[in-house]
């Protein structure tokens, strides 16, 4: 009887040698005349253990990691095929504390199934959401999404149900569903993992959205930095189409071209239309006049991929998770200088300290944690003094930050926060679309001014100027790029004054 061995095909697992491990496994099994079927899955998201391989045994799957290609002969010798003991054996994946503590709803299948097998998809709960949507009807489906409390997982946190209802109520000759997979925030990879590990969940989310609002065509806009995700998503669409799944809903992938600002929804629509990715003034809202001037639902990929699970198990079950107005779960991506980096899906409400220290295990370098940037390059830097902040849209806003797309980047005590503040302004300048003046010019003037601060030139006066500039950026920019760049800049200045040549205040 053949033994199934699972090796991730996720880009991050490949980046640390998963392909070499897969090749070594096949070669070594051939040499030993072992009957092995290799299955390439997505990643479970435990990146310090990647490449993590799993073998199917009568007692369930047994995981080993991190495995190098050179470990393979010894692993087979020790009885990998039976799940036997070895120094790299981590046991049943579900019992690894990092996974055991999670609530996997959006990521329920990721890392377990063959991403391109519809049989696997169905066997692990796929299609159930769409079937329920057809029972509820379009209006009932929108009501269910609204009742679940699902909000935009791209960062803005806008209620998905309201967006859908607005587009559904708009009269037009045609409508569109657009999936925003332009995941540009540093520290985030949830979209990428889903596209590579469970692409059918994205397709199901989009077909449900199309049914609910009456749209016949969908676009998935994927950033060009994700060649693996593009490939898997393309293959998944072909599989779905061949299975007759996309008869009433046409689906097409569009590839970005290295512009961060295209993650902003109106810039993304401009980009699909074939123009420079420049932000549109709102109104009109995309739900009224979006892609090609038609009513358009544009949602983040995680938002759409969560919809099938919400419909399958009901809005009530989803809304039972979370805190305050942040309902359900959030895939938190723990990254940077961290010991246990990976994807942690959990109900809203975990404190930043729990995420970084208990779950993440502190820094990878072993030095003390000094700063944590939450929510990507437009998110604030949090000092340890704010580690009690619960993971919740409103709680982060109240502390002049944002949860964004759920990225958490950890820095140790070697970080220079004046350099980080400078980088935030520099990044804004590099990626500015140029449409509005505060962002286009303010970012450049900001870099010049912070360089003077770093050089010790009229520090207080120049810091006052930066604060003033940040006010202009925040209130005068058209979109989040200019509008939120002040978060990393001002949080660095406020929480880490000593890096700007100012005395440390008592009790931050």
């Amino acid at each position, binding site marked *: 009887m053949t033994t199934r061995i699972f090796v991730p095909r996720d880009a*991050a697992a490949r*980046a640390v040698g998963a392909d070499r491990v897969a090749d070594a496994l096949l070669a070594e099994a051939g040499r030993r005349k072992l009957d092995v079927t290799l299955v390439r899955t997505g990643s479970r998201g435990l990146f310090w253990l990647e490449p993590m391989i799993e073998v199917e045994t009568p007692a369930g799957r047994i995981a080993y990691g991190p495995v190098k290609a050179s470990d393979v002969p010894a692993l087979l010798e020790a009885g990998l095929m039976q799940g036997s003991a070895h120094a790299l054996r981590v046991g049943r994946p579900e019992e690894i504390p990092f996974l055991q503590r999670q609530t996997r709803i959006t990521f329920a299948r990721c890392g377990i199934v063959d991403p391109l097998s519809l049989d696997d998809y169905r066997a692990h709960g796929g299609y159930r959401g769409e079937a329920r949507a057809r029972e509820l009807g379009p209006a009932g489906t929108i009501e269910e999404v609204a009742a679940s409390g699902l909000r935009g997982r791209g960062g803005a946190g806008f209620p998905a149900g309201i967006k859908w209802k607005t587009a559904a109520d708009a009269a037009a000759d045609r409508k569109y569903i657009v999936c925003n997979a332009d995941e540009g925030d540093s520290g*985030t990879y949830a979209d990428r993992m889903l596209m590579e590990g469970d692409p059918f969940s994205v397709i199901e989310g989009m077909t449900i959205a199309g049914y609910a609002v009456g749209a016949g065509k969908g676009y998935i806009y994927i950033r060009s930095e994700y060649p693996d995700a593009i490939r898997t998503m393309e293959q998944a669409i072909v599989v779905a189409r061949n299975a007759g799944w996309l008869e009433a809903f046409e689906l097409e992938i569009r590839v970005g071209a290295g512009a961060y600002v295209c993650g902003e929804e109106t810039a993304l629509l401009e980009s699909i239309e074939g*123009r420079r990715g420049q932000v549109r003034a709102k109104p009109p809202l995309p739900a009224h006049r979006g892609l090609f001037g038609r009513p358009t639902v544009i949602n983040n990929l995680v938002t759409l991929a969560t919809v099938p699970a919400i419909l399958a198990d009901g809005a009530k079950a989803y809304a039972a998770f979370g805190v305050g107005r942040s309902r359900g779960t959030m895939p938190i991506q723990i990254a940077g*200088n961290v010991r246990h980096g990976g994807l942690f899906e959990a109900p809203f409400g975990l404190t930043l300290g729990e995420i970084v220290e208990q779950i993440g295990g502190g820094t990878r370098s072993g030095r003390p944690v000094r700063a944590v940037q939450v929510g990507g390059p437009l998110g604030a830097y949090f000092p340890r003094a704010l580690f009690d902040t619960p993971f919740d849209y409103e709680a982060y806003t109240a502390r002049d930050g944002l949860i964004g797309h759920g990225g958490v980047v950890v820095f*140790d005590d070697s970080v220079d926060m004046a350099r*980080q503040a400078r*980088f935030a302004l520099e990044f804004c300048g590099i990626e500015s679309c140029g449409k509005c003046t505060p962002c286009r010019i303010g970012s450049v003037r900001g870099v010049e001014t912070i360089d003077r601060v770093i050089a010790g030139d009229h520090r207080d006066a120049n810091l006052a100027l930066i604060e003033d500039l940040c006010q202009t950026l925040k209130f005068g920019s058209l979109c989040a790029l200019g509008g939120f760049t002040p978060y990393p800049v001002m949080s660095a200045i406020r929480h880490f004054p000593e890096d700007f040549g100012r005395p440390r205040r008592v009790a931050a």
Partner: protein
Amino acid sequence: MWSEAEAREIVRRHSGREGPLLPILHDVQAAFGWVPPEVVRVVAAALNLTRAEVHGVVSFYHDFRDAPAGRHVLKLCRAEACQSMGGEAVARAVLDRFKIGWNETTPDGGVTIEATYCLGLCSCAPAAMLDGQPIGRLDHAVLDDIAGEVER
């Protein structure tokens, strides 16, 4: 080398699409390694756009090149997660080794090194991508492998 016939064929391939410009430009760059100004003229005429409009799109997006790239393209991530793991120092070492700056090509045309802002490999930082293949936990040993690959 670019050819007008191939450029026209690429445009024709996308003729039925809504908003075909970006897919066309991606295919142009995949075929020729860059977006030559002569091709901008062909594309503009075919889509009934001005050359300025197409040039505006080409120059807006970081991906589209106005000069051919080297035989290999190495993208190094410069975003925050990679910074937190010493990515800037590693990047400096790579640039010094090949004696070029950001977005430059070595004189022998061997490699172009481009800055990128996030490859989504943030839990395996510092990260890079060589000819589309992801590379994580970049250190001096991995760097030696990359140099070996490029110089081969």
